[in-house]
């Protein structure tokens, strides 16, 4: 029996691999997700047959409770709230990994000794440390993104020292558990300390940096699961944990490199520098801009444009304007225009966020074109409509300098014949720097408005005239 279970775990792990492989292509991605889910089902069902499992009551209770909460929240969440959702699920996953490690320690640590025990205990402690940080950190990240974290609670004098002390305490206690024979209570205290650490770690980081933190904590949870797998000598945990660890690492790298700030700076900069994640640089207010009304924008789009590119950004998500934008696409296509979307990989607040939002608004994905593939086409484009985006089209990124976005590849919208921005003001975006494109009165028009209202106005005007 126990061989059959191990075999089932191996099959499950291979199904995860096949599933992720199918995420390469939007045509097969959904099947891929289902493949992974089937792998999970196999692993869970196989576990029910583990020799020694006699008490099914609490398993069933836990599964029912978890399924209900998981299912309902996943069905209800808005696509714009994906970062929060990922944070929440990541938190419970990290918490589960840490609790599993503690339970396993409690159950087994009297029964083994010698080098085996050492390896086992190391794996448990690693899982507790990383899982605990991931749990508490994700909860804070969730609260920040949801806007329910009190804004005052960011950092306090001497916090850096407190962080070091808490971390040092957890490690010291861990070493005691490892070499001495401190029992379960000590491990529980380590878990408590790591939870405090997770809170202290995420607390000072600005809300806009949260996606990076979440992606990092996602990698952490994967590592915690892999470590639990070492403690239990369980292949499916090891393999699945490693896959997730790799995924989180790659996405974190992608984001931090496109933010132009190193990961340590993002994570610890707020504490060291004291406060704001990005300085809000002001002072472009005096330069004149070419302001436009919804009617002006509509006439530009309909009168002398053939090829049009839309650039959605974070502001579109905030204003929930994805439907309005896809409506405008349809109206313009009905008039025979070519309309495409230029999607910057870090537009919005999560990698690939804009793709999901536009897909939700029923824009076919072959119109969502990646930075690399569309950048050469701007030169042949009549009008670019930038909705709630800023940094991802900022030409300053291409100039040498030490702005936060220097070196980040941006959409080359300035190459088009005309550019229209829909945003509420001249305020900068996430990176906090001014965009020289706003002040090119020849080329650029600014429609100052909420993204949704502005788009609805333009749409109405397009339909009328």
């Amino acid at each position, binding site marked *: 029996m126990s061989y059959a279970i191990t075999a089932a775990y191996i099959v499950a792990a291979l199904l995860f691999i096949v599933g992720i*492989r199918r995420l390469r292509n939007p045509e097969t991605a959904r099947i891929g997700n289902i493949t992974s889910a089937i792998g999970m089902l196999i692993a869970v069902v196989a576990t029910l047959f583990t020799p020694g499992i006699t008490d099914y009551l609490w398993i069933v209770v836990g599964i029912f409770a978890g399924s209900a909460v998981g299912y309902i929240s996943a069905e209800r969440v808005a696509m714009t709230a994906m970062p929060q959702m990922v944070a929440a699920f990541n938190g419970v996953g990290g918490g589960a990994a840490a*609790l599993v490690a503690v339970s396993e320690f409690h159950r087994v640590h009297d029964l083994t000794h010698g080098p085996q025990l050492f390896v086992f205990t190391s794996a448990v402690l690693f899982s507790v440390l990383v899982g605990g940080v991931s749990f508490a950190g994700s909860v804070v990240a969730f609260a920040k993104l949801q806007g329910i974290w009190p804004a005052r609670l960011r950092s306090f004098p001497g916090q850096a020292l407190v962080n070091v002390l808490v971390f040092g305490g957890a490690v010291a206690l861990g070493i005691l558990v490892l070499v001495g024979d401190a029992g379960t209570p000590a491990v529980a205290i380590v878990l408590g300390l790591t939870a405090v650490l997770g809170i202290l770690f995420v607390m000072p980081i600005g809300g806009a940096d949260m996606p990076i933190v979440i992606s990092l904590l996602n990698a952490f949870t994967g590592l915690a699961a892999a470590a639990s797998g070492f403690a239990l000598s369980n292949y499916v945990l090891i393999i699945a944990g490693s896959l997730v*660890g790799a995924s989180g690492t*790659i996405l974190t790298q992608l984001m931090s490199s496109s933010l132009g700030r190193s990961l340590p700076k993002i994570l610890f900069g707020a504490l060291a520098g004291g406060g704001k994640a990005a300085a809000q640089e002001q002072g472009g207010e005096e330069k004149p801009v070419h302001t436009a009304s919804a009617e002006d924008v509509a006439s530009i789009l309909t009168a002398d444009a053939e090829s049009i590119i839309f650039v959605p950004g974070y502001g579109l998500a905030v204003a929930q304007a994805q439907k309005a934008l896809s409506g405008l696409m349809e109206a313009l296509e009905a008039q025979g225009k070519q309309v495409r979307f230029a999607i910057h990989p870090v537009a919005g607040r999560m990698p690939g966020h804009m793709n999901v939002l536009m897909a939700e608004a029923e824009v076919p994905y072959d119109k969502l074109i*990646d930075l690399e593939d569309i950048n050469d086409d701007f030169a042949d484009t009549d009008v670019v409509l930038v909705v709630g985006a800023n940094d991802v089209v900022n030409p300053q990124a291409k100039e040498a300098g030490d702005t936060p976005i220097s070196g980040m590849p941006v959409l080359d919208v300035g190459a088009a014949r005309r550019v229209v921005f829909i945003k509420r003001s001249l305020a900068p975006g996430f990176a906090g720097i001014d965009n020289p494109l706003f002040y090119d009165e020849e080329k650029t028009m600014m429609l100052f408005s909420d993204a949704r209202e502005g788009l609805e106005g333009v749409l109405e005007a397009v339909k009328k005239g």
Partner: protein
Amino acid sequence: MSGQALLGNLAVLGLAVAIGFELISRVPSLLHTPLMSATNAIHGVVLVGAMIAVGVSGADTLIKILGTIAVAFGTANIVGGFVVTNRQLGMFRRSERGKKER
């Protein structure tokens, strides 16, 4: 865990990390958000460990409590992660023209 089993686990770890990097680096940025939520669901597999912890006979009350919480957490992670990923992916559609061009 015997020494050889530990080494076997390390071999599996090394291979899994290598394959993880290969696989993830080939997912296009179009699908990065669903990728994040799908891998997020996959780490819910710790549920397996939680089930063993809470189900084996002789587990004391402390383990029962921690384990049941862990089971609930793990299940929420799995179910929520796969369902929300499925919702996202269900929205990705090719245009009629694109379908014909294939």
